[in-house]
Structure formats: structure tokens, C-alpha cells
């Protein structure tokens, strides 16, 4: 599809959680991730669609905002885009404003502000089916007349009314209705003057800048601003009187009933811990079945290749390098799939916002608010979207503190390492689940303590405020849940097939060459490039209880954490002649004196390192971008790595002292 046939640009704006992303997907046929909590769209996305009249438009999905007076960086994006201040972007030709029909009065504020800027607007009156179910009676015709823009009732989720919406986007677009209220002469004069100043400054959309500077001045709460807010609220109330009838709802609905338990200060915590424990238990209990299949499949593949190929370096490259390396990571696919299934299930059902509400009590103890909880929660999947989601935090210092501690929440790339190491500590799925739960808790608790330590040192004094919308519970949108799981699974497999495959091949070469004349595999290994590098790093890692090969595997894991498992699989598989599964390889690994390498204490020391180390260069790059400075990004990388080393050192040395092995 060429971009030259695009006839107009339409910007999609709306309050957070108004169903913007769902509507974007319904219109463009794309599949962006949808969450049932505020702040899902934190960066700009665009797509194209055709109207029934055959016109092609570009649709730009802007971050959700409550108003054009931005409280957080993602809301600034939306305001700047509408004012034409966003670099490299032209102002849109039309605004498609998404309003949640169940929360009409609140969302009409934003609509009025957009109309005031002088844009042509079409309103998508979303979630109309939920509004009807709640007994709300909405008259779109009356609202269309009052606001002088078309209101199209629809349900983006059920794809109802999408065609009508496309029909309402008639091209060429109708002219903008312009400001719907008038102020006293004095105010009108100052708006006109402000517009003229903007014009002289050569700003795009001077009339928009003109009203924006008066309605939302830099210094908050001027008389003019108060007056305009009052005028707009009055206008909305008059319009709503004619266009909306609310039932007298004193009865409790299902969401109230669930919330009475889910938000209860004691019962709520039991429920929260119960849900989290069930998630980890399911991951451990059910993932082992497909894991055994994958493990077995790669094991037999190795045997089959060994039997079909002549013995030599090439056979070793395929069996010990490629199959052991890629298989070693792919085996963890079931865990990744289950983890993301549960995360998107909780998001989609609306429970995540409740979790944030509960967590606010804990977060406030360390100087953060419940708002920081949602990015931290995304961090359990991957630190990168987590760091990006901090854009919804309005307080800059709180945001920085959250970014700096975020990588200590255990991301899904650590899962393969944890799953490999935990069985060395305990057996039985229930106790393994308990250890796993503990690992995540340790990472989270340390992260929170670090926030308590950091925040005053960053110069943040004001107490955090908490203001959060709690969306009604809803049935999960299965198509989105499965799409998200599929996307994550695919990117995991892709990583295994590209980055991890490449590193496995490289590691095999480094572990095989230069060759020595000896036939002893141990001597050969020591003579290889990796063996030599291992010798160099050994003095640093031996106080942690690791051998040289673990040290080199740890070094390679800075490219991506999962590589650690592949590295171990590749380097230890050279020890045995028989191809075997990753777990067997690692379990059978021996020190030079013949004692088993992976003792519970060594596994614990490795775990301590992996909980705390920031072994992910893409995260460092994103932190640099979000904080705008290498100082924070590199400081975080160095600080976390040093902390991880000290933690592993403490675990091993103290463990040895008390006689745990």
C-alpha cells in the first residue's frame, strides 16, 4: 500500500481506557496490544483504512489523555501533536474523538477542548452496548446538535457501528464548528490577542495556541482558566440534560460486589497473593509436560544427526553448537507462553488496576505511588515496555526512581535461568513454586527498598499522590489475549532462531578452536579461546563458587539473559560423547576433581546474581532514551552488576560458612 494515496490524516484521541486502541484495531485491522487499564498507548502508532466511499486515510493513535493540560510526558505528546508543535508531524485534518458512553460527562470535557482548538471532529460514542446494559439512555442526535459535530454510537469491541463511523468520515471533511461558548468581552479580547501573538511568532495553528495559552496557562489556576472550566462544565451539563438519562442506580452491580472483596485491606491481599501463587504454580506444574516433549525432541534430533553424519568438527558444530544452544532456550517456550497468558488475562479482566490500588499502600511506604506499580508490573514481562510505561507517572523524580529500580523485577528472560536452577535446590512442584515465588518477591522487595533509598537522594520531597480509575470488570477479550501471547511467543522463538543461534555458533567456535594436539576433551577445552578467557575470569568468579565456564557463560548473557542457558549447554556438552538433554548435560557437569558442579549453593549463588544483574543492553539503551542521559543508564548498569556480584558473593561465602552446600 503506497502512502501517496492517503488523502487525509486523522488523529484518534480519547481518555485513557475509553477503548481507543480497540477502535484503532477495528478500523485498521491491525492488532495493537489492548489493556484494560489507563495508559496502554504510550507512543504514537499509525495505520491506514478505506471508507465505503473509497477514500484512504491514515489513522494516528495518540496516547490517551484526560485533557489538553498535560500531567505526564505521554499526555504532552498528544497536546503537542494537536497544537502542531510535534517536530516532523503536520497537524491532522480531522480528529476522531473516542468517548466512553458510560462515562459521558467526564469524557465530554476533552471533546470540548478539542473543538475549542478549531478542529473538525467526529465523535465515536464507544461502549454503547455497556451503556445500554447499565440503563443509560443516550440521544446521539441531541448531542450532535449541541456540539455541532456528528456522534456515532458504536461498540469497537463487538465491531458494531464501525461501518457507520466510516460513513460519517465523509471527505472532504466538514469545516470545524469552532468554539461553542462565548466569554465576556475582556476574555474574548485576551484570546484574540493571544492568537495574534502566536501568529506573529509563526506558530502552526495560531488560533489553537491562542485559546490553549489562555485556557491552560503555564502558571496554573488563573481567573481566566477557572472561568473557562466553569463555562465548559456548564455547557456540558446543559447538553447532557437533554442528551443523557442516567438510571437512579443505588443498587450494587457485580463490579461493586467483587471490589468489596478485591479491595478489602485484608481479604484483598489474600486474593492477590492467591492469584499470584496460582499463576506461578500453574507455570511450574503444567509447563513441565510440553517442556519434556521439546527436550526429548531436541535430544532425539541430536541423536539422529549424530547417527547420520560422519564424526568430525561439522557434526560437533551442529549437535553441540546449534542443537544444544537453540534447544536449550526453546525448551522454555511453554513457560513464556503461560506467563504472558496470565499477564494479559489479568490486564484484560480489569484486575490489574485493583492490584495497583492494593499496592499503593506498600508503594507509599517507599515514597512511590500506586501509579509506579503498573510499570513495575510490566517489568515482570520485560523491562523495556515497563520503562516506557513510566511515562504515565506525572512526578518526574518518582518516574526516574521507578525507571532506576525497575530492572530488579524479574523479567521473563530470567525465567529460563530460574527454571533451570530451581530444581537444584528443591524437588516437587509445590516447593519449587514456593522458591520461584520467593525469587520474584526478593527482586521486588529489593527494588522497593532501593526506591526508598534513591528517592530522597534524587531530590524528591513532595509525597506521591494517588488518583486512579478502576475500570469495571469485564470478560477477557480472548482474541487479544491470544494475540498477545502469540506475539510474545513468536518473538521468543525468533530470538532463539537469530541472536541465540548466532551466539551458540560463535560459542562453539570459541570453545573448539584453537585445537590442541591432545585427545583429552578437558585439555582441549582449556586450550580453546573460551577456555583461555575462562582462565582470565576465573579468579573473579571463583569466590562466587563458579567455575571458568560459568564465568564465560555469564559474560555472554549480557547480550541476552537466556543465552546463559545455551552457553552452559554448549560448553558442557563437549564433556560427554553422548548427545543428551540440557538438563542432563548441566546436572552431569563435574569439576576437575570429579565433584558435581551444580550444587545447591552454587545454584543459589547464580540465582542471586541473575535476580540482581542488569544483563540486557537493550534496556540500557531504552533507559538512556527515557532519562535523556547516559549518566543514569550506565550508572544503573554498573550499580546493578556490582550489587549482583556482591549478592552472589555474600550468598556463597555465607553459605559455605554455615556448612550449606
Amino acid at each position, binding site marked *: 500500500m503506497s502512502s501517496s494515496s492517503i488523502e487525509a490524516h486523522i488523529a484518534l484521541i480519547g481518555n485513557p481506557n475509553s477503548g481507543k486502541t480497540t477502535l484503532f484495531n477495528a478500523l485498521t485491522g491491525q492488532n495493537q496490544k489492548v489493556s484494560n487499564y489507563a495508559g496502554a498507548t504510550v507512543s504514537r502508532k499509525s495505520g491506514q483504512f478505506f471508507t465505503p466511499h473509497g477514500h484512504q486515510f491514515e489513522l494516528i493513535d495518540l496516547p490517551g489523555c484526560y*485533557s489538553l493540560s498535560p*500531567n505526564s510526558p505521554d499526555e504532552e505528546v498528544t497536546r503537542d501533536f494537536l497544537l502542531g508543535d510535534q517536530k516532523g508531524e503536520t497537524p491532522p485534518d480531522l480528529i476522531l474523538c473516542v468517548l466512553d458512553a458510560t462515562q459521558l460527562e*467526564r469524557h465530554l*470535557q476533552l471533546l470540548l477542548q478539542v473543538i475549542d482548538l478549531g478542529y473538525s471532529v467526529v465523535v465515536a460514542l464507544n461502549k454503547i452496548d455497556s451503556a445500554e446494559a447499565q440503563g443509560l439512555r443516550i440521544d446521539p442526535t441531541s448531542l450532535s446538535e449541541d456540539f455541532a459535530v456528528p456522534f456515532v454510537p458504536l461498540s469497537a469491541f463487538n465491531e458494531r457501528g464501525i461501518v457507520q463511523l466510516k460513513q460519517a468520515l465523509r471527505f472532504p471533511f466538514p469545516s470545524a464548528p469552532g468554539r461553542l461558548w462565548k466569554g465576556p468581552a475582556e476574555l474574548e479580547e485576551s484570546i484574540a490577542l493571544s492568537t495574534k501573538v502566536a501568529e506573529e511568532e509563526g506558530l502552526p495553528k495560531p488560533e489553537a495556541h491562542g485559546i490553549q495559552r489562555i485556557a491552560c496557562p503555564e502558571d496554573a489556576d488563573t481567573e481566566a482558566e477557572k472561568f473557562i472550566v466553569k463555562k465548559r*462544565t456548564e455547557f456540558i451539563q446543559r447538553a447532557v440534560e437533554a442528551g443523557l438519562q442516567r438510571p437512579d442506580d443505588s443498587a450494587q452491580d457485580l463490579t461493586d460486589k467483587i471490589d468489596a472483596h478485591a479491595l478489602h485491606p485484608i481479604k484483598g491481599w489474600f486474593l492477590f497473593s492467591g492469584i499470584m501463587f496460582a499463576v506461578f504454580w500453574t507455570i511450574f506444574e503444567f509447563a513441565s509436560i510440553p517442556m519434556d516433549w521439546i527436550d526429548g525432541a531436541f535430544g532425539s534430533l541430536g541423536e539422529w544427526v549424530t547417527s547420520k553424519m560422519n564424526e568430525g568438527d561439522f557434526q560437533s558444530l551442529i549437535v553441540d553448537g546449534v542443537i544444544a544452544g537453540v534447544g536449550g532456550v526453546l525448551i522454555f517456550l511453554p513457560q513464556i507462553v503461560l506467563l504472558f497468558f496470565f499477564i494479559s488475562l489479568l490486564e484484560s479482566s480489569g484486575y490489574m488496576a485493583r492490584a495497583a490500588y492494593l499496592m499503593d*499502600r506498600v508503594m507509599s511506604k517507599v515514597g512511590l505511588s*500506586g501509579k509506579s506499580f503498573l510499570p513495575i508490573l510490566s517489568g515482570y514481562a520485560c523491562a523495556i515496555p515497563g520503562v516506557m510505561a513510566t511515562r504515565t507517572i506525572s512526578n518526574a523524580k518518582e518516574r526516574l526512581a521507578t525507571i532506576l529500580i525497575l530492572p530488579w523485577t524479574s523479567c521473563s528472560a530470567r525465567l529460563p535461568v530460574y527454571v533451570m536452577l530451581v530444581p537444584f535446590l528443591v524437588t516437587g512442584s509445590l516447593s519449587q513454586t514456593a522458591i520461584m515465588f520467593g525469587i520474584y518477591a526478593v527482586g521486588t522487595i529489593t527494588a522497593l527498598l532501593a526506591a526508598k533509598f534513591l528517592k530522597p537522594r534524587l531530590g524528591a520531597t513532595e*509525597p506521591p499522590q494517588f488518583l*486512579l480509575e478502576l475500570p469495571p470488570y469485564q470478560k477477557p477479550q480472548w482474541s487479544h489475549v491470544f494475540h498477545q501471547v502469540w506475539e510474545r511467543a513468536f518473538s521468543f522463538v525468533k530470538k532463539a532462531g537469530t541472536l541465540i543461534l548466532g551466539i551458540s555458533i560463535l560459542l562453539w567456535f570459541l570453545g573448539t578452536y584453537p585445537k590442541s594436539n591432545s585427545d583429552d576433551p578437558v585439555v582441549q577445552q582449556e586450550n580453546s579461546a573460551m577456555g583461555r578467557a575462562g582462565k582470565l575470569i576465573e579468579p573473579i568468579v571463583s569466590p562466587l563458587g563458579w567455575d571458568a565456564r560459568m564465568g564465560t557463560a555469564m559474560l555472554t548473557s549480557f547480550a541476552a539473559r537466556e543465552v546463559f542457558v545455551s552457553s552452559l549447554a554448549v560448553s558442557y556438552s563437549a564433556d560427554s560423547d553422548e548427545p543428551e538433554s540440557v538438563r542432563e548435560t548441566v546436572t552431569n557437569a563435574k569439576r576437575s576433581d570429579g565433584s558435581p558442579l551444580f550444587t545447591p549453593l552454587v545454584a543459589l549463588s547464580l540465582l542471586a546474581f541473575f535476580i540482581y544483574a542488569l544483563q540486557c543492553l537493550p534496556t540500557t539503551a531504552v533507559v538512556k532514551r527515557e532519562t535523556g542521559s547516559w549518566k543514569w543508564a550506565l550508572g544503573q548498569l554498573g550499580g546493578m552488576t556490582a550489587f549482583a556480584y556482591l549478592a552472589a558473593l555474600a550468598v556463597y561465602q555465607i553459605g559455605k560458612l554455615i556448612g550449606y552446600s
Partner: protein
Amino acid sequence: MSNLALHLERDSALTLSQASTGCDFQIRAVDGPACRQLRDIGFCEQMRVRKLTNGRNMLCTVCGTRLALSKDLADQIQVIPA
């Protein structure tokens, strides 16, 4: 409005954090450092609000939406019984 009526109204005004749970209120004024943020999320003058729970973070509904807000924010919202 007469002076007496104004006085009476001021006397019956409460902050949202003082207001009792389970009751409906109308927002009289939003005043304080976070007033813009509060208005943006729906706590505008004239709007009706129902307070659901008390506590450090209280729950209330504004036009059918559940909102959670901390006490220091609720202190900035003045309400009168509706």
C-alpha cells in the same frame, strides 16, 4: 444568593475526605495544587459524586466511574450533600 444563604452553604460544605460513605454529594469547589489534575479526571465543579469507602485511599464514583484517590487529594475537593 443572600448573605445568609451563602453562610449556610459554606457551613454545610465538607471536603470529600470528611464526607460520610455511601452518600451522594455535589462538588462545590476544587481548590489546591492538584486542582487541574482533579478536574481532568472528572472532579469538576457541579459534578455529582458518591463516596464509597473511607481510608488512606478512598473510593468514589463520578458519573458511573470508579475512582480511587488519596486523602490529600480528597482534601482539595469541597462538596455539599446532594
